[in-house]
């Protein structure tokens, strides 16, 4: 299978980045070193090419109704310039993907009442899902998969604002979390969103694919790959679609995954009734943070056991936290396992002492 190339693919190749396959795309995993990139974001600012993220535009008189029936959060109340985080569930309440849904500002030149940003490799599936439901519900809305119309760059870290402010005419001072505005960056019309996947303040920039390099080079700072993106998100306990939940490999509801805040049972979305039952009865298992006390690195697939050696669950994501200097991970554990309970992670057959912990792992 040919991998999809981001619009910055040539630039990454020239920069000497190590590339990897992710969600069907060939993306940079590391430019300099994961640790250096991670630290740049935690201490100053870094830029990520996230053009592999999907972009669906939904427009028309019933765009709102359609989108609100396909995501778990309430997007009907979003005013232009607002966005929120949501899951996309099937009728069992199982998460197919997670997404940010934007109501773009009215002055964006792109025709879009809603912009839905699913994860890498899910764009076709979600576009089909929107189209199929539009047709079966007979709603008046246009759905377009615009993933290969837009470049997307994340600028993350405490110095992101100063860096971006010098390159844009947009007023960043007024922009709250999950708010978006439209401005030019290096002369290119850009949807500027105060969102991210790192726990640091910062922006995600969505702009025309063929201008990819113009904006990327205007916001010059440490380029960061998917390696640092993963360590940064994991320190915050943010979910990775396909890893921390997956409809085939690891079917989970938003409640199990701990994103209750993204579920609004007052709206009529696919999966709502199943989730209402789960909400009342409670979940059997819940995604927990795991922090190693012993030296070692929890990795996806490692067993989590009780102090007595009983199997409790499996690590879904794990790494050595560059900030904490300790092994951290996520695992679905029985709901009666408390926070700060002693557990063990089996690292190549050796039980390592660990404890359960709330996420995020970092105070942010």
């Amino acid at each position, binding site marked *: 299978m040919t991998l999809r190339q981001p619009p910055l693919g040539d630039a990454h190749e020239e920069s*000497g980045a190590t590339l990897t396959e992710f969600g069907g795309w060939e993306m940079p*995993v*590391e430019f300099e*070193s*994961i*640790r250096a990139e991670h630290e740049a974001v935690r201490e100053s600012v870094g830029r990520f090419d996230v053009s592999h993220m999907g972009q669906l535009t939904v427009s028309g008189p019933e765009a709102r109704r359609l989108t609100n029936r396909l995501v778990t959060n309430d997007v009907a109340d979003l005013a232009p310039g607002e966005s929120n985080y949501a899951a996309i569930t099937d009728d069992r309440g199982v998460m197919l993907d997670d997404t940010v849904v934007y109501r773009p500002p009215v002055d964006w030149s792109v025709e879009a009442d809603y912009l839905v940003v699913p994860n890498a490799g899910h764009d076709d599936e979600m576009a089909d899902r929107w189209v199929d439901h539009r047709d079966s519900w007979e709603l008046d809305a246009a759905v377009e998969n615009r993933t290969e119309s837009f470049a997307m760059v994340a600028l993350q870290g405490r110095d992101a604002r100063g860096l971006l402010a010098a390159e844009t005419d947009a007023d960043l001072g007024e922009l709250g979390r999950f708010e978006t505005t439209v401005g030019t960056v290096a002369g290119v019309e850009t949807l500027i969103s105060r969102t991210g996947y790192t726990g640091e303040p910062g922006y995600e920039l969505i702009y025309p694919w063929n201008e990819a390099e113009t904006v990327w080079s205007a916001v010059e700072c440490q380029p960061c790959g998917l*390696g640092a993106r993963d*360590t940064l998100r994991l320190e915050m306990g943010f979910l990775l679609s396909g890893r921390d939940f997956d409809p085939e490999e690891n079917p989970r509801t938003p409640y199990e995954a701990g994103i209750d805040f993204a579920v609004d049972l007052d709206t009529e979305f696919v999966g709502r009734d199943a989730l209402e039952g789960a909400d009342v009865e409670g979940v059997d298992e819940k995604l927990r943070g795991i922090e190693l006390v012993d*030296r*070692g*690195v929890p*990795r996806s697939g490692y067993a989590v056991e009780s102090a007595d050696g009983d199997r409790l669950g499996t690590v879904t994501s794990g*790494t*050595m936290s*560059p900030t904490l200097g300790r*092994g951290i991970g996520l695992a679905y554990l029985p709901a009666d396992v408390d926070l700060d309970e002693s557990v063990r992670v089996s690292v*190549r057959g050796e039980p390592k002492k660990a404890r359960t912990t709330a996420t995020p792992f970092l105070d942010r």
Partner: protein
Amino acid sequence: MSFDVPDDLRYLDSHEWARVDDASARIGISEFAQDELGDVVFVDLPSEGDEVTAGDEFGVVESIKAVSDIYAPLTGTVTAVNDDLTDRPELINEDPYGDGWLIEIELSDDAEPDDLLAADEYSDQIA
């Protein structure tokens, strides 16, 4: 990018090096190997007195992104372990042929240093 491959060492094609000195050898991983791995964050090494066998794995080096088995270039008994790596595994990145060494062994009688790759042979392999 070219990597340092010191002439006075012998190599395994799995990227370990051995500095043989009479009946003993110091063992580590090559500069190429540390670069492939990226930031090393954890090492799992044998203890003094353990036996290692040429071609068999004797430990693990973990970077942020990968777990890699390490193989013994030579057969022998472990006489020293680089304890500095416990707190500073990044020494493997910073100085793979120096402070980032892994273990020292006393060679067994049947150890075959001549079976290992010479520097030029290893350089060709990673070129």
